[in-house]
């Protein structure tokens, strides 16, 4: 069971908040949401993982897919508010370097 909260901020940055578990079933929906944002012109995206209780390789794949298409369109994808448990999954795959976790959604594009 998962819900996705999606909104675009005044500064044009899209914020996607997966609430629940990012697994095989929900990763497909995340992939769609991210590619719709990018093709709709929102190329700077923050994925707020603060409400994400579980992550697996399909969730990682959806994030990497979104990162690539955002960058191809001249933007970027960043992740924020990653819990220690979810961080474990990024560390095990060495993706903590490609997708560096930011503390807050607000400041995710500050650097």
């Amino acid at each position, binding site marked *: 069971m998962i819900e996705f909260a999606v909104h675009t901020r005044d500064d044009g940055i899209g914020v996607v908040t997966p609430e629940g578990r990012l697994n095989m079933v929900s990763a497909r929906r995340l992939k769609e949401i991210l590619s719709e944002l990018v093709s709709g012109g929102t190329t700077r995206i923050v994925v707020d993982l603060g409400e994400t209780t579980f992550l697996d390789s399909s969730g990682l794949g959806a994030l990497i897919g979104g990162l690539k298409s955002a960058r191809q369109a001249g933007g970027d994808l960043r992740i924020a508010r990653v819990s220690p448990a979810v961080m474990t999954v990024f560390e095990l*795959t060495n993706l903590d370097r490609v997708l560096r976790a930011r503390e807050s959604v607000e400041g995710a594009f500050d650097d």
Partner: protein
Amino acid sequence: MTDPGPARVVTTLESRLVLSAPATPEIMDLVHAMLEHLWGTSPDISDRDRMRFEMSVIEILGNVVEHAYAADHSDIPGQDGRRFEIVVGITEENLMAHLGDNGLPTELDLSGVAMPDALAESGRGLALATAALDDLSYERVDGRNLWDLLCLRTAD
């Protein structure tokens, strides 16, 4: 192919939970619910141990659902359908899972599993599970694939 792993003992644990069900993507949520029940019975397991165990179970089961039936014909009426069984359990030292499915045998070499390129969008499941687990074993017995998963519990 290997011998049964040390986690096989979970199938004899008095406190084990066992689920047998059709191998569909939708069943994942019920396996998550099963693990949530397990965490409720042992509240002292660290978040990190829970995550690496739950993620590995879901990766291995996800592979069964996605890959183990790719080329077979078990959905022909009259033949046994695509089903799996999962056994999970906890002891003072271990988190253990045993998975059995009636899919096709696989020639996977678990010792040769490597993490793909950073920008790959798939192919990370087995690498993630082998990195997260303390033991992962596979064997084919009597027309079934058997997977045994072990996490040694660590302090938080």
